[in-house]
């Protein structure tokens, strides 16, 4: 019962259904109920994390027939990688919702219903061990997110929501075709249809077919990550979404893309991924994302947009580590995904808190916040440092691993990525300086510092950021087996050679 | 029927094809609704001709039976069609195709 992933997966959705029955005339009850459900969900997930056994692969397995004639199953389970992302998803989701306690004042019930459904959908992506189930959750999560952006977003919300959904669906339909190619190749080799990931991993398509599958899946996932030329939906969607939507988008939904790469692409078409030209393209695109994202951040005047673009840069690091195709790079990429969820989630929440107070996102409107809001400035500093990748916080551990991996693959890549790190430090420090230091203008003088509820929101983030930064070993222990699993597909001889 | 046999089969088919093409051309290029409708009747009659010719050549009645059905259907279509043309005329006082075009983007 306590380990039942199906229950924990559908708990938020169930809470959302019950929420529809509550009277919308009692906003506090609605808020309380939604946060209670999300809180229970987060706590439950964390107990699951505690019981997770890092010495085994898939755990807490739930396997039921779903569409037998297509070979699709209702197959849930977690390994170290998905467990970390799932725990991050539940926790960040709850905290983002708690942070938005006062942010939404219109159509409150509908807001929380969308949010609860969204939580179930995104959790499903990380829990599914069946590729079709993965895809269904992957797509289904777009619908509540569309409504979150289009109803409760900023000025340009409808345009941003349309852009978001059209872009991502264009990609994911191609992903579907790629997935079908792999699935059909598996049928051709074995004579039975199956969407379960272990079955698809055994397929190993080669040659042209491998390239087709790779590029189709790439198109779908690259939009989601987003990789450099496909990122144009992101700044609009992230900026226009309400705070909680931005947090979900940045912390959780971007990870679906990298998660897809590590679950479907690397182990799915290992022969193709190894090809030199494919690796070249991937690393170049990742480096472009890193450097370009950081450069764009430097000239942003909009605080929220700056953080949105910083995601492009950070996700570039994850892609670079992954395509280093060595344990350091891949484990760094996996950990960095969690780190990015924590640091960027916190940054978006902090911007959201300021937006509630001042109703502007212009960096120039702020300045000197250290005077009236010392606690906020302190938390913002930690979040920024965590995002920059400086010791002793979590970002450092992940980026170091990624750079090690990249270095092992190619020195110039690592140098370019190093430039990215420098730029990241530059734009975040500059932003920090503009927001918190200097003269405090009259408009900002009377601002209240963090309240008790806000402290409750940011504190878990700080603990996680410092915890992972100081003592990352448990996380790496959890990632060891998933990384090894991928390495055995991609470079079966790697461990033998290095010993 | 020696007289009929004197004319080769292909001639019937060519005549039918010409009539059919005339019908299509009339359908495409005429602008009066009634004329357009008559062009369609011409197409159907071209079809009837080829059915009868084939039927005769194959020494079967199937084709001729088909022709009867086509005639019946054409009559039914004409009845409904003229009724529709009448309502269009009542609503618009015109029978030119170009002027009946309120349904556009």
């Amino acid at each position, binding site marked *: 019962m306590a380990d039942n992933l199906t229950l924990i997966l559908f708990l938020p959705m169930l809470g959302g259904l019950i929420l529809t029955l509550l009277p919308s005339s009692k906003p506090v009850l609605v808020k309380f109920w939604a946060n209670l459900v999300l809180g229970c969900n987060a706590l439950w997930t964390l107990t699951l994390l505690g019981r997770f056994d890092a010495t085994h692969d898939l755990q807490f397995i739930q396997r039921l027939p779903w569409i037998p004639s297509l070979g699709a199953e209702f197959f849930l389970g977690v390994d170290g990688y998905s467990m970390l992302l799932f725990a991050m998803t539940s926790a960040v989701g709850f905290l983002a919702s708690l942070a938005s306690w006062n942010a939404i004042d219109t159509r409150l019930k509908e807001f929380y219903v969308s949010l609860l459904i969204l939580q179930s959908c995104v959790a499903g992506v990380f829990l599914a061990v069946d590729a079709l189930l993965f895809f269904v959750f992957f797509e289904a999560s777009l619908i509540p997110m569309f409504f979150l952006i289009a109803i409760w977003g900023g000025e340009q919300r409808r345009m941003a929501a349309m852009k978001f959904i059209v872009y991502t669906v264009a990609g994911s339909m*191609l992903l579907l075709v790629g997935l079908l190619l792999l699935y059909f190749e598996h049928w051709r080799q074995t004579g039975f249809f199956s969407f379960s990931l272990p079955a698809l991993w055994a397929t190993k398509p080669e040659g042209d077919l491998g390239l087709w599958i790779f590029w189709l899946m790439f198109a779908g996932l690259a939009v989601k990550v987003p990789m450099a030329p496909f990122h144009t939906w992101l700044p609009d969607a992230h900026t226009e979404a309400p705070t909680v939507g931005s947090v979900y988008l940045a912390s959780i939904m971007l990870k679906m893309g990298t998660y897809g790469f590590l679950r479907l692409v690397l182990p799915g078409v290992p022969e193709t991924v190894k090809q030199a030209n494919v690796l070249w393209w991937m690393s170049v695109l990742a480096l472009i994302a890193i450097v370009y994202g950081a450069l764009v951040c430097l000239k942003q005047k909009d605080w929220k947009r700056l953080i949105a673009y910083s995601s492009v840069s950070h996700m570039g690091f994850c892609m670079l580590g992954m395509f280093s195709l060595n344990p350091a790079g891949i484990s760094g990429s996996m950990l960095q995904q969690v780190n990015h969820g924590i640091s960027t989630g916190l940054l978006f929440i902090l911007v959201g808190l300021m937006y509630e107070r001042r109703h502007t996102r212009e960096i120039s409107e702020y300045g000197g916040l250290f005077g009236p809001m010392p606690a906020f400035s302190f938390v913002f500093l930690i979040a920024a440092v965590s995002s920059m990748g400086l010791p002793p916080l979590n970002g450092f551990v992940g980026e170091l691993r990624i750079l090690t991996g990249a270095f092992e693959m190619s020195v110039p890549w690592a140098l370019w990525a190093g430039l990215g790190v420098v730029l990241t430090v530059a734009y975040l420090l500059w932003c920090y300086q503009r927001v918190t230091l200097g003269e405090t203008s009259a408009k900002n003088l009377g601002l209240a510092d963090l309240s008790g509820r806000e402290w409750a929101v940011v504190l878990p983030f700080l603990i996680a950021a410092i915890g992972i930064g100081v003592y990352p070993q448990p996380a790496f222990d959890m990632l060891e087996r998933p990384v090894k699993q991928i390495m055995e597909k991609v470079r079966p001889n790697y461990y033998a050679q290095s010993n | 029927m020696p007289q009929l046999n004197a004319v080769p089969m292909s001639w019937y088919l060519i005549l039918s094809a010409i009539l059919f093409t005339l019908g299509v051309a009339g359908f495409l290029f005429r602008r009066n609704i009634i004329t357009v409708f008559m062009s369609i009747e011409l197409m159907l009659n071209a079809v009837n001709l080829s059915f009868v010719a*084939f039927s005769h050549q194959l020494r079967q009645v199937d*084709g001729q039976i088909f022709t009867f059905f086509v005639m019946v259907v054409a009559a039914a279509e004409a009845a409904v069609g003229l009724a529709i043309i009448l309502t269009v005329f009542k609503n618009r006082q015109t029978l030119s195709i170009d002027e009946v075009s309120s349904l556009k983007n």
Partner: protein
Amino acid sequence: MQFNNLFSILPAAVLALFGCVLLLLRFDSSRPYLIFLAFAELLAAIGLWRQTDFLGFTGFRGAILIDPFGIAFNAICLVAGLICAVGAYRYMEREDEDHPEFYGLILLAQSGMYLMNSGTELITVFIGLEITAVSFYSLTGFLRSNPRSSEAALKYLLLGAFSSGLLLYGFSILYGLSGSTHYLNIASMLATRNSRDPLILMAILPIVLGLLFKIAAAPLHMWAPDAYEGAPTPVTAYLATASKAAGFALLLRLILGPLHDLRPAWEGLITFAAIASLTVGNLAAITQSSTKRLLAYSSIGHVGYILLGLVAGNKTGIEAMLLYLLVYTLMTTGAFLLLSALDREGVTDFRGLLYRHPGVALLMILLLLSLAGLPPTAGFVAKYMIFLSLVQARQYWVAVIAALYVAVSLYYYFRIIREMLHNPDDSPATLTISTGWRAAVGLTAILSLGLGLNPEPVLAWARSALR
């Protein structure tokens, strides 16, 4: 033998009989007509269900074949007819045209579709086609005093009759080549023919073109947006689904039967029509300001998807077509009927619907998501099967194009959803809702979702229909 003959057309006979009787009835309200119609459909459905015990039997010397394929298509048409009629009566009352003929013509069209779905002989299917078409001409122009309705009927009539002429010309050549009007005989006579033979092309080209007209596939689609827009909205729902399904049944029976071995002769044309329909339907829908016209163009796009199953040409492809048609019928009847409740049809008339009528808006959102093909709706399962069949046939580029058009279609479907999220206008469109409408639209929406969550029953149904 005699029993067998009558039994093979029993559903059509019942439908035609009740349809004719309906023309003679006069009541004060439309409810008795509806009950009468539902009773006839029920009887026909029972007849159809009884036919499952007589699979493989033929009636009238092979003119009618009782097989799972025909039963499946007839079931689609019956469902569409019933849903449209049940959802329509308040609309017809509002337009002040609630005459018994409306329901009678629905039944008559249905009996014609039965012959199209089950006929395996040229004369039979031609008669079925024309019974259907003539009934639909009248239904389209049913709002006599509305110039748009009669104009739509005129366009549909002229182009429909023209396409019948084309089809007949092809039939006559086919008859001349094979000496028979029965599919089985035609198949055996054509088996030795070369597919490049000009006479074969002269037969196949007009037949395929005529049928593409009937299913409203590009480049022969131009009647569809006009006819769909001008027709009374419930008739549009019926026309866009049942008549299209019957057209597909006729096309499939011909192409998979007598013309199967001549694949090179029609393959190119079908592929072209599929891609062109996807392109025309999806791109033209983007700019429409009338929701009805938008849905009309989107239905052309859907025809493109369905035809892709034939482009793939394998067993999965045909199964996918059947599945797609069923799902398409559900969601399209639902969407058009929902539209029929609004007294205006512009895309902007949906403005604020989510806040004024959240239930109705949610149903529409569900149907639109299904039309767009997003999981977890039935529309996704249908598109999934089409993509799978293309992948199996190694038509990767076609699959990529089809996948990208999903994103295009998403844009215009979400335009409607986006309007719903705006704050309401000063003069919002008003809704006319009846119990029947609620049942009909609710059923389609629930099935669109339910069959997406658990598609196994429909997959099994499609497979069994092609045994």
